[in-house]
């Protein structure tokens, strides 16, 4: 009830004949936005690390490679976010990436297709595997955690067998035209007259495109909204006429597709389509969306937050690398910095709540 009704006449109740007063939606102060909170943490860390190690601002050796890493992990995070939107998990993100990268490598190796076609193959295969996971989940009613865990085991075996069989080892020795440019060039390498582009790697736009597309999907389309509704209550969604089976399958397919994209980007970054692509995707895939404010329970996602979350983890990793900790201390510090970053976010949240605002 807005305070304005205090002076309202006694008939201000919810009678069909009188519109109820409606308070203006509470305005959020800028700091109550979780995305801003993340930005602040990132900025603080960047300032700290550059003060401690000026090399943090080295363009060629720090900033450019960091952008490439972030690109991959943003996409990985989005792959997980697609199913987190349902309240599901995809424990097979890494292995889906590996299968997709295999498919791309295979296409380059056997059919000599151009770079873009390989990318499409990776996307299609990733989406197909993801859709299969979704189909198993909907048709059996088994928890997504279990299904994708089992799928992860299964694909782990499959990927090794496939490489063994078709690559005669553990990687394809392929270099489609343009792969090296995509891997190591930045826009700064391309000049029109005296004006060169910014020092941004060529793969960054691909990740940005993924962010924009996924963001658009969840923000503006009927399909995206229906996925979120399904995530918030499966039963209510079914009873509201949402085709839940199709939505669950398509969210998993999207997850597979993005995993495929991430696998492709990592293969480009690493310079080879090999069996170990995606091995280290699982934890970062959760970290980025969750740091960015996506709920594990489903029903709400934050795409920009995921991008910022991936950035934060990369900044932490990079900064600690530059500080040259030993292996054991490095891990301890990464964990501690993560906890601190998460707790800061909580403090912000609590402060916002105390002010009576839902962040």
């Amino acid at each position, binding site marked *: 009830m807005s305070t304005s009704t205090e002076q309202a006449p006694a008939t201000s109740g919810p009678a069909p004949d009188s519109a109820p007063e409606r308070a203006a939606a509470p305005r959020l102060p800028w700091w109550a936005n979780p995305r801003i909170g993340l930005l602040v943490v990132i900025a603080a860390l960047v300032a700290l690390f550059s003060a401690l190690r000026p090399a943090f601002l080295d363009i060629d050796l720090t900033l450019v490679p960091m952008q490439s890493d972030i690109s991959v992990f943003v996409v990985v995070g989005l792959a997980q976010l697609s199913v987190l939107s349902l309240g599901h998990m995809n424990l097979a993100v890494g292995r889906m990436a590996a299968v997709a990268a295999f498919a791309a490598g295979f296409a380059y190796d056997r059919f000599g297709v151009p770079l873009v076609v390989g990318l499409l193959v990776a996307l299609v295969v990733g989406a197909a595997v993801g859709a299969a996971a979704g189909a198993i989940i909907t048709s059996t009613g088994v928890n997504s955690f279990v299904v994708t865990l089992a799928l992860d085991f299964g694909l782990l075996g499959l990927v*090794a067998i496939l490489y063994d069989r078709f690559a005669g080892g553990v990687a394809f020795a392929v270099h489609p035209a343009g792969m090296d440019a995509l891997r190591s060039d930045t826009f700064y390498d391309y000049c029109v007259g005296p004006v060169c582009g910014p020092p941004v790697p060529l793969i960054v736009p691909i990740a940005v495109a993924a962010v924009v597309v996924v963001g658009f999907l969840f923000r503006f389309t009927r399909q995206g909204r229906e996925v979120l509704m399904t995530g918030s209550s499966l039963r209510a969604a079914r009873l509201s006429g949402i085709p839940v089976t199709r939505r669950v399958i398509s969210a998993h397919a999207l997850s597979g597709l993005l995993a495929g994209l991430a696998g492709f980007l990592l293969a480009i970054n690493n310079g080879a389509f090999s069996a170990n692509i995606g091995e280290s995707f699982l934890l970062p895939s959760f970290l980025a969306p969750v740091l960015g404010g996506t709920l594990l329970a489903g029903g709400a996602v934050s795409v920009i937050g995921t991008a910022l979350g991936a950035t934060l983890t990369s900044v932490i990793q990079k900064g600690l690398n530059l500080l040259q900790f030993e292996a054991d201390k490095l891990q301890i510090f990464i964990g501690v910095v993560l906890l601190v970053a998460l707790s800061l976010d909580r403090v912000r949240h609590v402060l916002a709540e105390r002010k009576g605002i839902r962040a």
Partner: protein
Amino acid sequence: MTTLTSATRPQAKVRTSLHRTEIVLAGLSVLAFVVLAATTGGNLLEAGTLQAVLQYLAVPIVIGLSQMVVLAVGQMNLSVGVLTGLCAMVGAGLMADAGLSPWLALPAALVVGAVVGLANGVLVVATRINGFIVTLATMTIVAGLRYGIHGTGTYQDYSDGLVRFGRANVLGLPVVFLAAVATAVATWFFFARTVWGRQLLASGGNPLATRLSGISNDRSVVIAHTLSGLLAGVAALLVVALSGSVNASIGDDLLLPSFAAPIIGGVALTGGVVSVVGTCLAAFIVRLVDVAQAQYNINPRWVDLVVGAVVLGAVLVSQKRGKETS
């Protein structure tokens, strides 16, 4: 009371479905074991083989229970594996480097486990951050600590007596296996009979109702995480006693099995339901897959495929009636 007593119609059969999972798993275990024993010409039944099967079943059982305890309150603990490694390194290090007797070193290892678990729980409660994420962070920290104790080196010969004990048999059954079974029984008792155990399950089953009943969910979460850490410590003791050599790689391969056992065993990820029997049986089945690999000389990559299929198959069979997805 006419309308009421007649008004009993089956609905969501929580208990029976759990019982069905357990029965299916029991049937599957017996079947797999018999098939394996028959096709290997009885090799499986020889004392030495059986002993190897059961010895290396101990840790999966305890680590599965360790995960199950947090699943009971609807949490997850990603740090169980590395925590087992840390406790093992602490125990072995105290014996090898500090020259402590096992009587002091092993309890110390248990304490480390419980303290890390407690820290997990307190962090979850104090920061209100999702347990999945908190334990993800502590996992990194614990992995660092584990490695910090002895670098890449391997501890060996820390205590002959302990290792002899760890490899001993009682009535033909390995001591470590019996210890795991005892742990399982204690865990069962905790959940079935103690007030804390029931409160944990209540918190997992319906946190709001539990809070409204005057029970602190926060306390349940802290207790669950502490117990989980303690059980990881128990797993570490089994490792130290059984293997005779430990290094910082211990625990790297325990995370997924820790989830596989309870989940195949019928424990709900949403909390509120546990099955000690199911968890133990599931661990046994996964162990049999390993054994089959050794017996039939299967490419380990195919084993991954098989484990994947077994996980899915077991869950499918026991959930024949389509429950809600998600």
